[in-house]
C-alpha cells in the first residue's frame, strides 16, 4: 500500500465506515433532511430530536455510498451527539474537512461534505406531520418506475423529490473554501 492510500483509507476512517456511529432512526424525530450527490449516487439522511432549548437530544444518520461519504457522516454525527444547533451553525465546511483530517481532492470533498450539507439543512427542517418524512423517503426510491419518473418531471415538482434547504451553500463554493494547505 502506498503512503497516499494510507492517508485516505486510514484506520479511523475505515472504522467509521465499517462500524458507523448512530446509523439508524431517531426514536422521536423533530427535524429531518436528506440529499444525494447526483454524480456518484451517495445518499445521506439525518434525523434530529431537538428540544425546546435547541439541544439535540438525538442525532442519527442513514445512507449509502462510498467510504468517504459514509465515514464522514458517522464522524459528524458522533461530533454533534448531544450538542446544540447553535454549534452546528458555527461549524463551517472548513471545520468539517479539518475534522475529517485527510487530504481530499475537490471531487472527494463533495463526498465528505454531503453529510455536513444535510445537517446544516436539517436544523432548519422541522418535521411537519409526516409530510417531510414522506418526501425524504420518496427520494430514496427516486425513479422507481417510469410513471413516477414522468410525474416527477412535471412542472413545479423538484425531480429530486425533496425540498431544497434554505441555507446550503453551493458545493463549488465549498470546494473553494477548503483549506489550501490540505490540498498540497
Amino acid at each position, binding site marked *: 500500500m502506498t503512503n*497516499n492510500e494510507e492517508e485516505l*483509507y486510514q484506520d479511523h476512517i*475505515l472504522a467509521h465506515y*465499517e462500524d458507523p456511529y448512530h446509523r439508524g432512526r431517531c426514536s422521536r424525530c423533530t427535524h429531518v433532511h436528506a440529499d444525494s450527490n447526483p454524480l456518484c449516487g451517495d445518499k445521506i439522511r439525518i434525523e434530529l430530536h431537538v428540544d425546546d432549548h435547541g439541544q439535540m437530544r438525538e442525532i442519527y444518520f442513514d445512507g449509502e455510498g462510498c*467510504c468517504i461519504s459514509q465515514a464522514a457522516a458517522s464522524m459528524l454525527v458522533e461530533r454533534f451527539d448531544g450538542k446544540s444547533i447553535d454549534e452546528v451553525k458555527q461549524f463551517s465546511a472548513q471545520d468539517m474537512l479539518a475534522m475529517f483530517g485527510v487530504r481530499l481532492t475537490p471531487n472527494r470533498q463533495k463526498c465528505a461534505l454531503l453529510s455536513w450539507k444535510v445537517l446544516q439543512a436539517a436544523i432548519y427542517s422541522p418535521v411537519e406531520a409526516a409530510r417531510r418524512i414522506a418526501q425524504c423517503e420518496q427520494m430514496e426510491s427516486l*425513479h422507481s418506475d*417510469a410513471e413516477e419518473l414522468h410525474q416527477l418531471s412535471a412542472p413545479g415538482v423538484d425531480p429530486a423529490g425533496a425540498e431544497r434547504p434554505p441555507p446550503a451553500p453551493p458545493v463549488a463554493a465549498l470546494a473553494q473554501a477548503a483549506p489550501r494547505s490540505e490540498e498540497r
Partner: protein
Amino acid sequence: MSGAAASDEARVARLRQDFPILARQVSGKPLAYLDNAASTQRPRAVIEAMTAAYEQHYANVHRGIHTLAQEADELYEGAREKVRAFINAPSVEQIIFTSGATAAINLAARSFCDRFLSPGDEILLTEMEHHANLVPWQQAAERTGAVIRYTPLTEDGRLDLDAFQRLLGPRTKLVAVTAVSNVLGTINPLPEIIALAHAAGAEVLVDGAQSVPHARTDVQSLDCDLLVFSGHKMLGPTGVGVLYGRRDLLERMPPFLGGGSMIREVRFDGFRPADLPYKFEAGTPPIVEVIGLAAAIDYLEQVGRDWIEQRERQLTEAAHRALEQIDGLRIIGPEPKYKGGIVSFVVERLHPHDAAELLDREGVAVRAGHHCAMPLHERLGLSASTRASFYFYNTFDEIDRLAAAIEKAKAVFRRKS
C-alpha cells in the same frame, strides 16, 4: 501467445506511439486508460490537423470570398464527405454537424416530435438508454402530449425483443434505441429492431455514440432513419457530433435552432429555411472540431474498423476471464459474445467510488457512478457501478493490471467480515 496475437500486440505498441497522452504516468505508474466509453484519447494526427487549421486555414465558413474562407470551406465540406463515406450515407446533404451526440438527439427530438407527434402518440425507448436518449424524449412528450414506453431487459441485460414487439403499436411513431449500452456493453440487434419498427410504421433513431467508433456502420444496409454519434468518442475533438437522417424525413422536419446559415431568406415578417444540411446548422459551426473529426476518421480508416472490432472483442473476453476470477466481483451485463468493449461490475463491500479512487493509485483509469443511466441502475437495483471500457489501443497487460488493482483495492476493506 499465438503468432497472430503477438503481431497484434506489436501493432498496438506501434499505434500507441501515435497517442502522446498514453505515454504519461499517473500515480507514478504507466497510465492504463480504461475510460474510453466516456471519451477516447486523440492521436497526434488529430491534434496536428486542428493546429494546422488554426495556424494556416482558419476563417469562418460559408460566408467569405477570401482565400482563407475558401480553404476553411474546403476543409469543412471535405469533412462532411468523409463522414458520409464513413457511415455510407447516400449524400452529404444528410450529414448534419452538431456539437455532439446529445445535441443531435435534442435536435431530432425537438424537430421530429414537434412536427409529427400528437397527444397519445407513442415514443418507444429502452430501459438501457443513456440520459441523452431519455430526457429529450421526455421533454418532447411533455410538449406534445405523447406517451413514452420502455422496452424492458432480459435477466442477463439484453433487450427483451418479445416485449419490444408487444410494445410496438399503431400509435408508435418513433423508436429511439442505443446501438450499444454504455453500461452493460450490450450490442442491440438493430436489424431486427429496425425491421419490426418499420413494419409497425415507426421511424427509428439509433444512438451510435458507443457503436460508430468501434464497428463498421452502414446506414443504408442498416436502414435506420436517424443516427447520431459524437466525435470525442472516436479519437476526435469534443464539441462535434453528427446527425444523419433519411433525406425525405430531414426535408419534412422543421429547423430546430434559428440563426445565421440556416436561412435562405429573412424578412421582418418571417424566414425561409436553407436547404439541407444547412437548415439544421444555425450559427458558426464547430469548424476546427469538424476538421479534427475528419482527421480522426482518416486515422480510424487506416487502422481498420474490422480489426478494431475484433481487437475489442478479444479485450472484452480477456477482461471477463480476468474479472471472473475475482471473488465477490459481479459483472453487469451479458456474456462477451453479446458485448462491445465495455465491462461494468460491482464488488462486494467495495463502493464503485472507492474502487475508482484506489484503481487510480495504480494508474488505472476507470469510471464509477451511474454513467448517465440512472433509470438502468435503478432497474438493476444498484446505485452505482464501476466501468472499464476499451479501445483498440488498450493491451492485455492493462487488463491484468486492472484485475490486480481490484484485488489490491479489496484488501483495503478486508479488515472485517
